C-alpha cells in the first residue's frame, strides 16, 4: 500500500530528465559533491541502480575509481516484500516493500518506535515476520547462505562482560570463517583499548569500539548497525564513521545504519530509508531524493498559497524563513525562490509529517524476478 504507485515523478527516468532540465535544480549535484564524500575519498561510487536511468548518477557519484568491487547491476542486499511484524501492542511494521541495492551505505531514519530495530531484527533473523518476507542477498535470513554474510551490531551492543578484549576478538575468530584479525585489532588499537582488559571494566565508548571491531572483523557483505554512535564522543564518532566508509568502500560492503544524528548521516550515506508509524516514507538514493524536493520561499503571512504542481510535505512558517518543503511535481523555474534542501532538512520534514505520501525511488522498488533479469538484459544491450 505504501509502495502503491506513487512514482518519483511520472515514469521511471522522468525524474532525472526533469531534474536535469530544471534550471536551479540542476545545481543540486554540485552541492552534493561538496558535502557527501567529505569523509570518504576512497568510496567507490554506487553503481547504476537501473541501466535506463543514467541521469540519476550524474551527481558526482562516479568519482570512485570503479575498481570492480561493485556488485553486479541489480543485486539486492536486502529485498522486502509486504513485510509486516505485529507485536501484542500492535503493528511495528506494516506492509513494507523495498530493496536496498548492494554496495550502498544506507541510512535508516525514523522517530523512536517507528520500527527501525524491528526491520533490522527481521533482516538478521532475530525476529520473524508476521506477514510478507525479506531476503538478504536472495537468501532467507538465518540461512547458512545469509548468516555468514551479515553482521549485526545491536543497539545494546551486548558483549560477554567477563571476557577480555582479546577473548572477545577470539570469539569472533572462532565463530567466523572469514574473520579478519587485522581489521578487528586495528579498530581496537586505534582507541588504545588494552587487549587484556575485561569488557566489564571498559567505558561505554570503549565497549562500543570492541563491538565495532567484532562486527567489522567478520568481514560481512551486509553490515547492519543499530544506533551505533549513540555513546561515542564526537571525535571517536568521526573516526569510526571514517573507518566505516573506508571499509565499506574497500570491500564493497553494504551498510544499513540507523541513527538520529541526521547531520552525520549525510556524511556517510548515499542511500536512505525513512520509516514512520511502521510504514516506509522515503526510499532511494540520497541524491535523487534531494533532487526531487525543494525548499520554496513563501514570503509574507496569510493563507498558504497553492504551490501546484508540487506537493507540500511540510510548511514551516515560524522558524527561520517562512516557506515549505515540497516534493517537486514539475521542473522549477529560476524565479520561484527555491533552494535544495539538505538531507537533514529533508529528513526533518518527513519526520514531522508522518502522513506525507511516501516516495519510493525506482532503484528501491521491488520487482519480481522478471524485472531484475529484464534490467540486466537492458544493461547488456544498452
Amino acid at each position, binding site marked *: 500500500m505504501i509502495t502503491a504507485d506513487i512514482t518519483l515523478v511520472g515514469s521511471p527516468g522522468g525524474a532525472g530528465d526533469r531534474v536535469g532540465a530544471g534550471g536551479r535544480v540542476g545545481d543540486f549535484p554540485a552541492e552534493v559533491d561538496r558535502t557527501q564524500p567529505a569523509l570518504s575519498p576512497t568510496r567507490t561510487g554506487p553503481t547504476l541502480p537501473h541501466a535506463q536511468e543514467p541521469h540519476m548518477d550524474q551527481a558526482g557519484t562516479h568519482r570512485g575509481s570503479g575498481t570492480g568491487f561493485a556488485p553486479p547491476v541489480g543485486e539486492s542486499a536486502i529485498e522486502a516484500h509486504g513485510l509486516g511484524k505485529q507485536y501484542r501492542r500492535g503493528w511495528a511494521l506494516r506492509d513494507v516493500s523495498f530493496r536496498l541495492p548492494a554496495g550502498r551505505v544506507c541510512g535508516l531514519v525514523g522517530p523512536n518506535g517507528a520500527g527501525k530495530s524491528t526491520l533490522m531484527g527481521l533482516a538478521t533473523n532475530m525476529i520473524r515476520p508476521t506477514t510478507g518476507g525479506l531476503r538478504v542477498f536472495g537468501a532467507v535470513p538465518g540461512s547458512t547462505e545469509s548468516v555468514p554474510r551479515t553482521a549485526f551490531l545491536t543497539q545494546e551492543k551486548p558483549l560477554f562482560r567477563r571476557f577480555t578484549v*582479546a577473548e572477545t576478538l577470539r570469539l569472533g575468530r572462532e565463530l567466523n570463517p572469514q574473520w579478519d584479525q587485522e581489521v578487528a585489532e586495528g579498530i581496537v588499537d586505534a582507541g588504545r583499548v588494552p587487549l587484556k582488559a575485561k569488557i566489564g571494566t571498559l567505558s561505554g565508548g570503549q565497549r562500543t569500539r570492541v563491538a565495532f571491531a567484532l562486527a567489522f572483523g567478520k568481514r560481512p557483505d551486509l553490515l547492519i548497525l543499530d544506533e551505533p554512535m549513540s555513546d561515542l564522543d564526537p571525535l571517536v564518532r568521526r573516526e569510526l564513521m571514517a573507518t566505516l566508509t573506508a571499509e565499506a568502500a574497500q570491500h564493497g560492503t553494504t551498510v544499513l545504519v540507523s541513527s538520529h544524528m541526521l547531520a552525520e548521516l549525510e556524511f556517510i550515506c548515499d542511500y536512505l530509508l525513512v520509516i514512520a508509524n511502521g510504514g516506509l516514507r522515503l526510499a532511494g538514493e540520497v541524491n535523487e531524493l534531494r533532487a526531487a524536493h525543494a525548499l520554496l520561499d513563501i514570503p509574507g503571512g496569510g493563507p498558504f498559497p497553492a504551490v501546484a504542481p508540487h506537493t507540500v510535505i511540510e510548511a514551516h512558517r515560524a522558524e527561520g524563513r517562512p516557506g515549505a518543503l515540497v516534493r517537486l511535481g514539475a521542473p522549477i523555474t529560476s524565479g520561484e525562490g527555491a533552494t535544495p534542501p539538505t538531507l537533514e532538512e529533508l529528513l526533518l520534514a518527513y519526520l514531522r509529517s508522518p502522513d506525507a505520501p511516501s516516495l519510493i525511488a525506482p532503484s528501491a522498488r521491488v520487482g519480481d524476478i522478471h524485472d531484475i533479469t529484464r534490467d540486466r538484459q537492458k544493461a547488456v544491450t544498452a
Partner: protein
Amino acid sequence: MTTLTHDPAHTAPAGRPQNAPGSRQAGPRLGGTAWLVWRQHRAAFWTLIALTVLCVVVMVFLRGQVVDYLDARPQKSGGLPPDFEQYTSRLSSFGGYLGFVPLLTGVLLGAPLIAGDLESGTAKLVTSQSVSRLRWLTMKLAMPAALIALSTAVLAAVFDWWWSPVKGRADTLEWTSGAFFDVTWVMPVAYALLTFAVGAAVGMLLRRTLVSMVVTLGVVVAIEVVWDRFRLSLGHIMSVGTDKGVGPGAARPELPAGAVQQGQGTYFLTSSGARLDWTACLDKVDNDRAHTACLESKHVIGWSMDYLPISQMHTMQWLGAGIMLAVAAAIVTFIIVWGRKRLL
C-alpha cells in the same frame, strides 16, 4: 592497493602464532563453539570438577576407615559389631547428600545456561556470528551435559565401591531408599541430566536467570516428590510364605539377604493362597482360644511377606534411568526446536 574481500592471507585464524592473552588459563584446547561454551562457563565447570574430586577423596577416605574396621573384626555369622552403626550412618547420610546433586545441576547449571545469555543479550551476540543457532545450542547443552554425566558417573561408581564391603551385611541399609537407589549405578547420571534439561528449558522460556532458578527449584522438588512415590513400583514384588501355622512358636518367613520388606507388615496366608491383613482377628487377640478359632475359621495356615530382592536393584535403576533419560531427551528436543525458531 586493493584487497580482495576474501583474501586468504587475512583470513587464516588458526595460523596466528601469537596466543591471545586470555587463553593462557589451564583448560582444554578447544575451538569454535566449544571454546566459547567452555570459556563462558568455565567457572561453573571447574567448580563442578573440583566438587567431584573433593567428594571422591572424602569417599575414598571413609571407605578406607570401613575396610580397616572390618579387617580388624572378622565377620561372625552375618552379624555386625554393635558400634558399626556409625559407619553405616555415615554411608547413608553421604548418600543423602549426593541425592542433592540433581537439584544443584538443575538450579545452578541448567537454569542460568540459556537464561543468562538471553538476559544479558549475549545470545544476540553469538547468533549474529557465522555459527548456526543449532550448533551453538547443541554445544551449549552437550558440553555441560557431558561434564555432568561424567562427574555423576564417577560419584556413583565411587559410592558403590564404598558401599560394597557392607552391602550384604548391614540390614539397616535399605537399598530402596533414595540415599542408595538414586546415587548408584546409572540413576544419578539420568537424574542429573533430567534436572539439567528441565533447568535449561525453564531458563529458555522465562529468560531471566533468577526467576528461572527459583522455578527450576520448584519443578525439581516436584519431580523428586513424584519420583519418591513412583520409584518402588518399578520393581516386581516377591512374596515368601510359611505353612507351619501362626502360633507363638511358628517360624516367621525369612527374607533373603539384602531384601527390603514391602507392603503392610506380615500377612496371614490362607490355605486357598489368599492373604489376610495382619489386623484380621485383632479384636480377639486377648483371648488365645477365640483368636485361634477366628484364624482357623479363615483357614489361615501361615505367614506371608512381600519384599524386593536386591537382585532387582539394577533392573529397577535401568528402568528408572531409562524413563528419566527419555523425558530429558524430549525436553532437549523441545529446547532445540523452540530455540532454533524463537530463541530471540
